[in-house]
């Protein structure tokens, strides 16, 4: 879909922003370009829609050199979203969104009808259609920016640090929105960010840049965390990459124990009989709290368990849906050091100890490593860490 062939951008002062870049963005996938400031990621992005022209090499969009196309026409077929939103302050939300359809010669009424469809698509209320950008929150403006980029249904979407200017909660919801949109629309997305978390969350593929426009590693997010090619990549990905990689591992294969699970209306004697160090009280299948065995020992055997003071369960994980990272986190935060697994209805399925979690992690890791080919450094000449 998008192919960079030996693309170099050199400025008149001799600065090399992008250095002989080869890159294929597969159709329908989200490719994230990530790296430190000055690594050439934004320059690379802007060369796709010719906001910047390369010095050498060429960029093909559907096998056609972008430089052989009329820039205005080329750009109308490529959605573009930027950090500062770049919304037109003098146009209402619907007219902002309708920009490219109107440029393509649609009648205004039809373009506005399309704009309203897009408002819904990006999760905004119809009531915002006649507002001006200054009347919107930062997050809403950014959603309008995405809607505007999608208005003419372009196959390609370029996003330049699209979520960097909003607070973390809004950012997370915008990222979720993008992931949801992608499962529906399958655009070819190139997204630039300096935030490796964002890259790992939204990317199908991540190209991690070194300074001065070379790719250090191009891989799936899971491989980037699991098998960084060198110290530079490992350093950029972060010291807790092992934990973060667990986000990609399923809890479906985790072996859960029901031994410590006892109904709250049972007696202390029944709980003591399990011989477990911690008892999970459940009521109608829902987790109530953890009780340590030594606390049970102080109670008469016929005391209802419900009357024994319990420790909070904290958060649970949904078996098969949540990742091993969520399960491990639940175990870490639990007084009992065990993660409580529930089904989609919140009913307890079983609990997992650290040992069981470790076994599941090792099984998933060896499966993932076996499935992937050994990674090749994207540029073998300069493997030294930066």
């Amino acid at each position: 879909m998008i192919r960079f062939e030996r693309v170099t951008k050199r400025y008149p002062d001799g600065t090399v922003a992008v250095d002989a870049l080869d890159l294929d963005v597969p159709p329908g996938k989200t490719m994230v370009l990530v790296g430190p400031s000055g690594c050439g990621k934004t320059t690379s992005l802007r060369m796709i829609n010719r906001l910047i022209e390369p010095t050498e090499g060429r960029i093909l969009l559907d096998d056609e050199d972008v430089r052989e196309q009329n820039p205005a026409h080329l750009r109308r077929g490529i959605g573009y979203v930027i950090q500062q939103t770049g919304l037109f302050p003098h146009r209402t939300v619907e007219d902002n969104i309708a920009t490219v359809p109107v440029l393509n010669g649609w009648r205004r009424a039809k373009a506005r009808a399309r704009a309203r469809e897009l408002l819904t698509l990006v999760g905004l209320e119809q009531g915002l259609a006649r507002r001006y950008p200054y009347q919107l929150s930062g997050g809403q403006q950014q959603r309008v920016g995405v809607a505007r980029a999608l208005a003419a249904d372009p196959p390609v979407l370029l996003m330049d640090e699209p979520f960097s200017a909003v607070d973390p909660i809004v950012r997370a919801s915008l990222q979720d929105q993008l992931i949801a949109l992608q499962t529906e629309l399958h655009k070819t997305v190139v997204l630039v960010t300096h935030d490796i978390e964002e890259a790992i969350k939204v990317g199908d593929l991540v190209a991690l840049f070194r300074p001065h426009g070379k790719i250090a590693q191009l891989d799936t997010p899971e491989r980037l965390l699991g098998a960084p090619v060198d110290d530079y990549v490992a350093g950029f990905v972060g010291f807790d990459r092992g934990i973060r990689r667990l986000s990609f591992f399923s809890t479906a294969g985790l072996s859960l124990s029901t031994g410590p699970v006892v109904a709250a209306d049972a007696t202390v004697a029944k709980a003591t009989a399990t011989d477990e160090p911690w008892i999970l009280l459940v009521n109608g299948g829902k987790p109530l709290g953890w009780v340590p065995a030594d606390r049970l020992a102080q109670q008469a055997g016929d005391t209802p368990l419900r009357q024994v003071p319990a420790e909070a369960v904290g958060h649970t994980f949904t078996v098969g849906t949540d990742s091993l990272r969520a399960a491990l986190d639940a175990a870490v935060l639990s007084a009992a050091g065990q993660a409580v697994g529930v089904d989609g209805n919140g009913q307890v399925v079983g609990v997992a100890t650290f040992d069981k979690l470790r076994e599941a992690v090792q099984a998933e890791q060896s499966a993932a490593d076996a499935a992937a080919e050994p990674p090749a450094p994207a540029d073998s000449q300069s493997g030294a860490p930066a």
Partner: protein
Amino acid sequence: MIWSWIPSNGALIWQLTRENIYIGVVSALIGLAISLPLGIVAARWRWFNPPALTAVSLIYAIPAIALMIALIPALGLTDTNVIVALALFSLCVILPNVVAGLRGVPASVRQAATAMGYGPLRRLVMVELPLAVPVIMGGLRVGMVSSISLATVGQLIGVSTLGYLFIDGLQRSFPTPIYVGMVLIIAIAVGCDLVLVGVRRLLTPWVARS
């Protein structure tokens, strides 16, 4: 202050008022019409900016009466003479605002417009000029008020304006027409300014009301 002077000279006062409004408003609008293309050029090609703004300051320093006298050989003792002189003065205050207004368009908006597929001319007309309207209107307001006021100087080369009342009052040592002229000039200026504020509001419903 002889109040009875006003009704007995009503027809004269009304005629002078209309002439003054005509000269002031037309001059300012011509100043705007010339400022727009010059401002667009100055905003786009930076090298044009320092000489243009220097020239504008120099022109603005010329005394109004001197400029009108200098224009007599070419334009005679006519309305045109006064309008040309005042248009030049209002150009001096409007042009810098056109440049500032266009330069003030956020880079992100300009870049987004380009990336949406606007060509340079369309982007100018559909995005940059509309966004420069508040700043340009600020310049036009100052230009119009000063044109309305300076139009009275035209009386010195025989062009009929409310300036007649000042000369008349001075020559006869009779202050009433001078007071009437001053009040009318201020009233016209305030009225035109309010009209321009209204026009600006109509053109820019998208500006946040503070």
